[in-house]
């Protein structure tokens, strides 16, 4: 359990009126993700998911005011109905450009309801702590290759 949050970490805990298996599907299937990703004024018209460890995902949310915002990352760990770990980054050129985040989501079901714990940490912190630079770089190379393939198909 996370007790001390650093300045660059985010923790959001929510209880949903649904079993863990359904929440797991909402995160792992593009047809579901398109229905909820993004804040109120946004739609999510694009989502591609290669749901396996090392697999990439990519999506886009848009609004009249903010236009298209592409995002993507790579799945690091998947435990069915329990846990999903993935990297997350925006493609845009704003202040968040190029910042890799590591997101960990866990699901804990109780009497048909599920507590979803969302934790986001800046990748810079993780990189400096673990020094797993080469491993991450190759994952990002794969992501870039995947994104290029997607662009060709469109």
């Amino acid at each position, binding site marked *: 359990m996370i007790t001390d949050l650093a300045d*660059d970490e985010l923790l959001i805990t929510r209880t949903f009126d649904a079993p863990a298996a359904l929440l797991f599907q909402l995160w792992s299937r593009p047809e579901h993700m398109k229905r909820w*990703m993004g*804040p109120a004024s946004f739609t999510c018209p694009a989502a591609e998911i290669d749901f396996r460890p090392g697999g990439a995902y990519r999506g886009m949310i848009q609004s009249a005011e903010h236009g298209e915002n592409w995002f993507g990352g790579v799945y690091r760990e998947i435990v069915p109905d329990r846990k999903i770990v993935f990297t997350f980054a925006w493609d845009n050129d704003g202040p*968040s450009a190029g910042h890799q985040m590591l997101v960990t989501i866990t699901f804990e079901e109780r009497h048909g309801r599920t507590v979803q714990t969302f934790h986001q940490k800046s990748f810079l912190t993780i990189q400096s702590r673990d020094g797993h630079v080469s491993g991450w770089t190759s994952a990002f190379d794969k992501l870039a290759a995947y994104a290029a393939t997607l662009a060709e198909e469109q």
Partner: protein
Amino acid sequence: MPTPDALSATLSALADPTGRAILARLAEGEATVNELAQPFAISLPAVSRHLKVLEGAGLISRGREAQWRPCRLEADALRDVDDWLGRYRRFWSGSFDKMDAYIAELKRKEKRR
């Protein structure tokens, strides 16, 4: 609004545990390099290197006098990190609101079957 590079420098500096500890100490008030080095098992030059990184990231500023150069916390850089994190919080919280509504919709469809 910070540039991507400025934010990167701030986040990198924050990623270091010693850097964080120095910032925590400076949150209590100004301090000299000697005072900052005391709680750490590292040399003065090592502390100076940490201070240089923090200063480069805009997280601290240092006095002008050569001998007595007190370090102080600069709140603006930390506020930028806070604003940046706030945008993520709004993004995800807003998404989870929609997730809640979508679950309700899925349940209504399930019942009709």
